């Protein structure tokens, strides 16, 4: 039996509740949460979808560290497992946090290819070498689970801060050889809530379940943004 201490929230107050789960080899934290929901308390609320580490819905704080519940084995966590909602997000109920603002920030950096003269009536293939692909491939692996944002001290102190995930998406498109919208994104990234707010705690890279290295993306975006500002100052 493994003891699950879950921080719950009912809209008014936050409290801890403990459940005992018969853990077996291969059981994930997400399965344990389903066990609790089905056998002890059906009101337990949590988000989950793909159950295979792709959708990023089940990110939560497990034993003080943000992880994907579907990819965390219960037996690797000891006899007591502490489960909490992610930090730096508003809690809606139990383990469910408000992600609207997080996705708004993601949308704000224009996370799509911007082309100046694309003719949709006559679409053409945009060729790319493997080297060009490798420039940004790592950053395409982000599943927007919010783990990086939840540990970011800059996000903890400034609500408007874009956060590591959004800036990783910005860099991912700025580094894409097919993209022509770098200037627009550099302007967004150089805003007071953009790249200059990152103080490089690097915790985002440490907790990313996909090893995306968001801190590296933010620093590369910062460098590109700085050069872009310099170029515009010199009139190039």
């Amino acid at each position: 039996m493994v003891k699950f201490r879950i921080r719950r929230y009912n809209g008014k107050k936050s409290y801890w509740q403990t459940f005992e789960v018969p853990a077996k080899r291969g059981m994930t934290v997400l399965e344990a949460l389903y066990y609790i929901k089905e056998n002890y308390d059906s009101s337990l609320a949590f988000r989950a979808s793909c159950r295979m580490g792709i959708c990023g819905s089940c990110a939560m704080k497990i034993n003080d560290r943000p992880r994907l519940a579907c990819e965390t084995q219960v037996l690797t966590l000891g006899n007591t497992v502490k489960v909490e909602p992610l930090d730096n997000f508003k809690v809606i109920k139990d383990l469910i946090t408000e992600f609207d603002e997080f996705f708004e920030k993601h949308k704000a950096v224009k996370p799509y290819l911007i082309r100046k003269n694309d003719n949709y009536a006559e679409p053409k293939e945009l060729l790319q070498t493997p080297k060009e692909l490798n420039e940004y491939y790592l950053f395409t692996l982000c599943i927007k689970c919010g783990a990086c944002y939840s540990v970011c001290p800059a996000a903890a102190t400034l609500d408007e801060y874009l956060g590591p995930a959004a800036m990783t998406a910005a860099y991912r498109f700025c580094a894409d050889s097919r993209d022509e919208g770098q200037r627009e994104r550099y302007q967004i990234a150089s805003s007071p809530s953009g790249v200059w707010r990152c103080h490089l705690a690097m915790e985002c890279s440490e907790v990313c379940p996909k090893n995306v290295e968001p801190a590296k993306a933010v620093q590369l975006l910062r460098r590109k943004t700085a050069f872009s500002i310099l170029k515009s100052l010199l009139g190039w």
Partner: protein
Amino acid sequence: MSVSGWFRFKGRSLFSWAFTFQRLTGVVLLIYLLAHLTYLSTLLDKTGLTYESMIAITVSRQFLVFDLLLVLCGVFHGVNGFRIILHEFGIAYENRKPLLAIFTIITVVVWLYASYIMYSLTGG
């Protein structure tokens, strides 16, 4: 949200500790600098006796521990700051873990050497 976000350590890596100490030492150094400049700029005694008496207190053996802590703050802030600047330019990001260890060792070695010198100067 508030600056309490700087002080979350549970489940965090050494990078979070380095970040928090960088902030704390920065605040300590800022307070020290302000106190130092305020004291020097408000000295009315033109004979230099007030200044000399203050210096006599600060170089005493009893005061040494505060001096050593201040030097530790300065050395850590400088050395760790240099590491952060390197990474901010996108340099050696993949080697961030060994770099953190190396810079921590440099901080300790420099601080111990400075402590030895300061201890010797106070007659130790």
